[in-house]
């Protein structure tokens, strides 16, 4: 067999290594900064570009796509060439991959800080960058497939299976989740709305974890761990089983991010069971890694590289058990919207991704620079300080999360929320935020030590950009399975078939969840009263998105009494049909905002309150950790875009009339001026085009459509003045007559109650039993229960008399009294 000589491209590996280190440190610094902002909001310095809401996506994108992303490319470009015994297919594509990716990251950092965002988590980038990502990613895949086609090795090794699955799945996820309609060069709306958008987003979001943070790194593990340990992989069979089960099952698990949300139950249940079924496939990877270290555990004790890898694999095992546990609905009810999730993902990110990257870099850099690591001692120190950093990061966050979620759910003796003031539950966990930041600092220090160690290593080494190697040419293979050849063995030498099967495996779950949700109408029951946003509210919604409010505030009340008592009615899927994109959020650093528009609801705040709160939250809530947003009072809405936004929404199926489109700005100003007038009464001067006005309009709309009819009733109630009771015998006599004419039909002649109305003679009251309560019930009525408002039906004096009369019935014990209803009135 002819032995061929070829050259590995080490330069591209080196570039990705540098990028990994650089962006890793950037991601850690930004992460640390926003962690500190939560504890010390003054760190925002009144600068709009560095609020938590803007920087949080910078941090997550930097950690995922810049740090881990470049880590994937460094690992894949190095290992693929050697596993396939060939140079990368195209130097040009390699360069496009390298520089295109760095360009994307730079654009991401700048655009996100500027508030250019789609709001969808880990997919916040706007459409031009999305297109760029698709191009570069496909360039990577093309380069990989080309390399595989030119290989000099018969079978494709398991590491490469994982690279293949990652490429195919991420391409699919990215394209579908980024389907958006551009409004302008820097603004687009998701083509999906509400519940459907939520499902697509979390199908993507969850599988960004699966196919970006997990499978490529399993590929990296399968190359670098046996290399560094100099041990054979423990079980080839386990590789096969856990690869296929992992990629097939993972894609289904997305709905576990939406448990107890307004997602149909069947989809939630699929999310639960597929998450539980993920335990074994994930642990298969961990076991194959740890068992490969069998026999070299004494080496692990001394060697920093193996230590990093062993802890990385263990962290992977921990978080892939914790994930399924969090997908059990009862556990999720506690963990969702809390820092538990943040702690959970950081076990994965810092432990699995971070430590595996560090292990790989300590092994790889000396290798390509033909030298030894400058200092093993420093590497070991990095390991210990990093491990301590992870512990100090995660433990306080878990603690804080349990504390907070229990406070959210606690009721007191009287049956009210024990901590109705959300702020109390935040103040309680600030010390944990500070400790967490200490952990983050240690982790960052470790990375800086690594930077120093690697620079020192590189300084004494030298790199061979094109490293010579040789291997026998690949002999012609028969496409058919040979006798005695096992099916999977055959598949490993048939890349195209492998791609197709992998594609099918990752396609099925998504198709079977997303398509029915979109196609079957009954999945999202229509609510007649839900109407599209007004042009002003639409603009306000875009302010909300640009400021990244969804990074701290959810818009999803779950069907728990502790939430409906705090926020109002739980969210219904039909409420979100015009939400392009959905804004349910995933973390409640601040309270839920789903019902801020319900006048008389628990979350309603006046326009003046919002205005002052945005200008300086501490003015209305001394302990608030929300940054001040004074620029919202200064900046003007770009009203030239109003009509275009309405038009874009129309094209996405939101039923605006032609008139609404043509008069978009007219209606905008009409509504804005009302808010300006409203603010003026409270002594606040502003202009209708300011960001704050649009944002108030939006917040005053949220969750309101279900309650349209309530407003007049509430106004009446507000204007109600409680008079003095009229208790003379004359009054009683008159009242008795009025009572028998008007009230007896439902409450009985003696107030004993009947099938319609409650008993008025016992101590149990549905709407309060004080004079003020009864007066209010008679005056305003309780229309939803059939009790009319008697204002205007009888004279005002008669209302007072009859209310007094009702109270005089207390304790009369009439015959046929109806069973008690409502709360018992206690004497005091």
């Amino acid at each position: 067999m002819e032995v061929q000589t070829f050259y590995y491209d080490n330069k591209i590996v080196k570039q990705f290594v540098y990028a990994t280190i650089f962006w890793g440190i950037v991601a850690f610094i930004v992460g640390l900064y926003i962690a500190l902002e939560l504890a010390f909001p003054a760190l925002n310095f009144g600068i709009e570009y560095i609020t938590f809401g803007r920087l949080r996506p910078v941090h997550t994108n930097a950690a995922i796509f810049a740090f881990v992303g470049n880590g994937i490319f460094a690992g894949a470009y190095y290992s693929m060439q050697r596993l396939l015994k060939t140079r990368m297919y195209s130097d040009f594509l390699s360069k496009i991959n390298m520089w295109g990716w760095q360009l994307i990251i730079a654009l991401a950092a700048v655009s996100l800080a500027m508030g250019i965002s789609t709001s969808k988590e880990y997919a916040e980038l706007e459409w031009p960058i999305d297109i760029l990502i698709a191009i570069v990613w496909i360039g990577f895949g093309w380069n990989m497939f080309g390399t595989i086609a030119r290989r000099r090795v018969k079978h494709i090794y398991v590491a490469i299976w994982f690279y293949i699955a990652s490429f195919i799945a991420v391409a699919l996820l990215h394209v579908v989740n980024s389907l958006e309609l551009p409004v302008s060069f820097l603004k687009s709306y998701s083509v999906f709305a509400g519940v459907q958008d939520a499902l697509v987003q979390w199908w993507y979001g969850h599988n960004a974890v699966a196919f970006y943070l997990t499978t490529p790194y399993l590929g990296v593990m399968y190359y670098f761990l046996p290399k560094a340990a100099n041990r054979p992989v423990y079980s080839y069979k386990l590789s096969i089983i856990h690869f296929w089960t992992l990629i097939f099952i993972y894609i289904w698990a997305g709905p576990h991010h939406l448990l107890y949300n307004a997602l149909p139950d069947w989809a939630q249940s699929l999310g639960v069971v597929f998450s539980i079924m993920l335990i074994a496939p994930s642990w298969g990877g961990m076991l194959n890694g740890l068992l490969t270290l069998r026999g070299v555990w004494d080496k692990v004790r001394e060697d920093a590289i193996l230590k990093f890898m062993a802890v990385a694999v263990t962290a992977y095992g921990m978080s892939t058990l914790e994930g399924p546990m969090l997908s059990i609905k009862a556990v999720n009810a506690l963990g969702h919207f809390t820092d538990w999730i943040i702690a959970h993902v950081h076990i994965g990110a810092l432990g699995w991704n971070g430590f595996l990257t560090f292990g790989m870099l300590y092994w790889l850099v000396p290798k390509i620079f033909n030298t030894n690591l400058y200092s093993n001692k420093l590497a070991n120190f990095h390991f210990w300080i990093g491990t301590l950093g992870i512990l100090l990061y995660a433990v306080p966050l878990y603690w804080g999360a349990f504390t907070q979620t229990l406070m959210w759910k606690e009721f007191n003796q009287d049956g009210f929320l024990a901590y109705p003031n959300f702020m109390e539950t935040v103040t309680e966990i600030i010390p944990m935020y500070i400790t967490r930041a200490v952990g983050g600092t240690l982790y960052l220090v470790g990375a800086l030590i690594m930077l120093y160690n690697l620079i020192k290593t590189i300084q004494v080494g030298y790199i061979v950009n094109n490293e010579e190697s040789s291997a026998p040419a690949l002999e012609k293979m028969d496409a058919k399975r040979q006798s005695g050849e096992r099916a999977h063995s055959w598949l490993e030498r048939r890349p195209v078939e492998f791609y197709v099967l992998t594609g099918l495996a990752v396609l099925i779950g998504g198709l079977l969840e997303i398509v029915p949700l979109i196609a079957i109408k009954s999945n999202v029951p229509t609510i007649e009263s839900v109407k599209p946003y007004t042009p002003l509210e639409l603009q306000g919604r875009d302010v909300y998105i640009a400021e990244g409010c969804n990074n701290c505030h959810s818009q999803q009340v779950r069907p728990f009494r502790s939430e409906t008592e705090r926020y109002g009615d739980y969210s219904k899927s039909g409420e979100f049909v015009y939400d392009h994109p959905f804004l349910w959020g995933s973390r409640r650093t601040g309270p839920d905002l789903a019902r801020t528009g319900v006048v008389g609801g628990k979350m309603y705040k006046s326009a003046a309150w919002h205005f002052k709160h945005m200008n300086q939250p501490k003015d209305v809530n001394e302990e608030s950790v929300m940054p001040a947003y004074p620029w919202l009072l200064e900046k003007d809405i770009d009203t030239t875009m109003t009509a275009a936004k309405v038009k874009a929404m129309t094209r996405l199926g939101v039923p605006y009339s032609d008139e609404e489109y043509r008069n978009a700005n007219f209606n905008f100003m009409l509504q804005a001026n009302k808010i300006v007038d409203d603010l003026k009464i409270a002594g606040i001067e502003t202009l209708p085009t300011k960001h704050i006005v649009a944002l108030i309009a939006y917040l005053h709309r949220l969750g309101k459509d279900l309650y349209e009819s309530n407003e007049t009733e509430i106004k009446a109630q507000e204007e109600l003045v409680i008079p003095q009771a009229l208790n003379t015998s004359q009054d009683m006599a008159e009242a008795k007559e009025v009572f028998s004419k008007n009230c007896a039909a439902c409450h009985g002649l003696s107030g004993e109650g009947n099938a319609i109305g409650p008993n008025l003679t016992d101590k149990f009251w549905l709407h309060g039993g004080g004079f003020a309560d009864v007066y209010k019930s008679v005056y305003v009525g309780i229309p939803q229960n059939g009790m009319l408002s008697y204002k205007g039906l009888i004279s005002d004096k008669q209302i007072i008399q009859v209310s007094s009369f009702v109270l005089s019935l207390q304790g009369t014990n009439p015959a046929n009294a109806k069973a008690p209803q409502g709360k018992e009135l206690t004497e005091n």
Partner: protein
Amino acid sequence: MAENEIKDTNFVEGHDFDGIRELDNPPPPWIMWVLYLTIFWSALYMVHYHVFKQGDLQEQEYVNEVAEADALLAQRNAEAQKTPSVVLKADEKIALGKELYVQKACSACHGSLGEGNAVGPNLTDKYWLHGNGEADIVKSIKFGFPTKGMIPYSDQLSDDKIEAIAYYIKNELYGSNPPNAKLSEGEMIE
């Protein structure tokens, strides 16, 4: 090193990837059992909830939760009824009202001394927007003025606690002349 060195013999034939070899070990049996059991459990779960429709899904769970809470509260009220209720003395009522005034963050909008601020009105002067009888104040706290930003406290506080706050406002804050008092709003009530 030598004593715990493992002699591997069962390599997968023909698999040598850049020096990495693979063993033909079977997967640890227990992990396969975990796989089978979780699949079995998942099938049961889906059948239980979505085929036989046993087990409560979230909306029913919520209905149950609310019913349970209502029953519990009714029972608690009945028990409370049996024990003679404590009538608070004036100073106790003021102390409780003051405590609640702080705890419920009334000060966020009305100032810590009732002097009022940019959001809420002054509670110490003779000018009142919604009346200053104790019953008026009780009503204001209880039902709120949602469109003006005063939330209803009827779902956070029991009646006796609302009365204690009203009592504190009327008997302690009212007429106290704190510094930085907000300009008067509403009608003068002597």
